[in-house]
């Protein structure tokens, strides 16, 4: 009789249908009653073969597909990609295009953090913040829809510029939105910042020291929560970020609460960046005039035979990129997002590697959950801001 009561290790599948795994993540747990011995995340349920897909598409055709990687912040993904191709080509986008790109990227970052805020809170049983998060996100998506024509899949960046100029009235609407949004950040503070349950569930959970965080290769708010001063926008500046005035929030303790505070402060900093961009945005072209990437105007095509040939050549053959290798990185909402491209001088990449932050940020999971409760695991998943679209590629 007694040996039946002996405690045995139990193996449990957490996900892929579990509501708090933010998609199709499966974690295999070895449990002793409710305490975790070992956790092993299994990725790949959303694998779509992006890297292989890129080898069969021209450089232009891959732009709309990049939006599908991290679907919460599509603009950042495409920007990193076009930046890599531009580096290889030696093309720079005009300044107005860069400003539009930065506005779009920061709006994307806000939208992504808002989803994170709601999702992390709902995992811990607070069902209200997601309503407010999605309310503000709706305003952002409307702005981006007006700008690019899509709510999540923008297909907006082009190699050498952007597809559209700012629509009429965009600047005013954006200012109006930012003003309302800055007020609404207080709502989240009321709901979460001082909430005893939120503090108890997040403080001291998942503590990573600065050294550990660096050794695990963490980036983004997860790294900065541990007090490491690293942000690609400051340490390896790209686009127009060096001209803008903004702070980078860093935490101290390295627990989930500090990561929350870092992201919350990034709301304010992103608002600051967008406001500066709206003030400073110059006039001018939105597409580089380099003949390798820029198509002639449609009006010229039927009048001028050279334009016709050039237009059809770019459309049929795509952009030819010189031989070489390049790595570009940007600061996405979750961390360093990069593309490594090897070109053989043709119109298609020979090999394309995508460095995505989420799976790398997730590597300390086993270390962090040992001896913890399952309830802490959901808090941890929320704290790392998972997006399975980019994890599984």
């Amino acid at each position: 009789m007694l040996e039946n009561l002996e405690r045995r290790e139990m193996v449990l599948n957490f996900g892929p249908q579990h509501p708090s795994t933010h998609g199709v993540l499966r974690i295999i747990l070895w449990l002793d009653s409710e305490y975790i011995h070992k956790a092993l995340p299994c990725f790949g349920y959303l694998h779509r073969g992006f890297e292989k897909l890129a080898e069969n598409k021209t450089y232009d055709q891959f732009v709309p597909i990049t939006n599908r990687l991290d679907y919460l912040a599509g603009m950042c993904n495409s920007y990193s990609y076009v930046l890599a191709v531009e580096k290889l080509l030696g093309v720079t986008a005009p300044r107005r295009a860069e400003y539009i790109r930065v506005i779009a990227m920061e709006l994307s970052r806000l939208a992504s953090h808002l989803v994170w805020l709601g999702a992390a809170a709902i995992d811990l049983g607070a069902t209200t913040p997601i309503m407010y998060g999605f309310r503000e996100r709706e305003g952002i998506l409307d702005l981006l829809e007006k700008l690019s024509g899509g709510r999540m899949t923008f297909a907006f960046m082009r190699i050498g510029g952007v597809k559209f100029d700012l629509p009429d009235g965009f600047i005013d609407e954006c200012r109006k939105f930012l003003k309302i949004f800055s007020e609404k950040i207080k709502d989240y503070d009321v709901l979460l910042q001082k909430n005893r349950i939120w503090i108890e569930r997040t403080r001291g959970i998942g503590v990573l020291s600065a050294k550990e965080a660096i050794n695990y290769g963490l980036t983004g708010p997860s790294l900065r929560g541990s007090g490491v001063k690293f942000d690609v926008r400051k340490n390896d500046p790209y686009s127009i970020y060096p001209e803008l005035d903004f702070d980078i929030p860093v935490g101290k303790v390295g627990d989930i609460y500090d990561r929350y505070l870092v992201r919350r402060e990034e709301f304010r900093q992103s608002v600051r960046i967008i406001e500066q961009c709206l003030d400073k945005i110059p006039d001018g072209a939105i597409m580089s005039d380099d003949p390798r990437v820029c198509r002639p105007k449609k009006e010229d095509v039927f009048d001028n035979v050279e334009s016709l040939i050039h237009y059809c050549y770019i459309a049929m053959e795509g952009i030819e990129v010189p031989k070489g290798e390049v790595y570009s990185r940007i600061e996405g909402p979750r961390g360093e997002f990069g593309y490594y491209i090897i070109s053989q001088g043709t119109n298609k990449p020979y090999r394309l590697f995508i460095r995505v932050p989420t799976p790398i940020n997730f590597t300390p999971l086993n270390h962090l959950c040992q001896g913890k409760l399952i309830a802490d695991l959901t808090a941890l998943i929320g704290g790392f801001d998972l997006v399975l679209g980019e994890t599984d590629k």
Partner: protein
Amino acid sequence: MGDYKIVTYKEEKKGLKKRVKQMFFWEILQGMSLTFKYMLSKPITMRYPEHKWVAPDRFRGQVALVRDEKKMDQDLCVGCCLCIRVCPSGALDIITSMGKDGNKVIDEYVYDMSRCIYCGMCVEICPVDALISTGNYELAEDDMESLMMNKEALLKSGHRWCELKKIMAKKGIKSQSVIRVKPAKWTLERANVREEDLEVTPDIPNIYPKKPM
């Protein structure tokens, strides 16, 4: 410019104030009062499908073909096949032949909606603007067959969309607003919406730039 800024948990000062706050669940009361405040304000959601969202001009919905308004018997499309070449997902196909007078004739134009990723590359590249992105986003169908469109269907759909845009302009319905469509005509583009079926809804409050007139 700018610097690093340290954010971390700040312990509240110990004392009577903290004790009282703790005893009465002060922060939870605050959260509840916030929820209560919003409970009394008007809802900001729209009641789909009774209410419909008018997509902005740049929206990329289903692709359609258009004809020249004046010469309705003649195709605008010149059969250059650039759209097929740029399409990242291979959703388009075209069959052309030599006409009597030596011009290229478009025999058939195939659009597979189940493959399309609505990226708008085809519309962007078309040198004669024969392709348009409609604002039609209600594309669910019962079977796969209905997702394949031929030239005739594409032209019809393009024509209807242009008509609908005219009606909306006449009624003063702006893009990115919410309209009400009479229940029997729930699908905007496919079910031949007439002018009297569209109503303007005034009952969603304006908190974000989008909201309706």
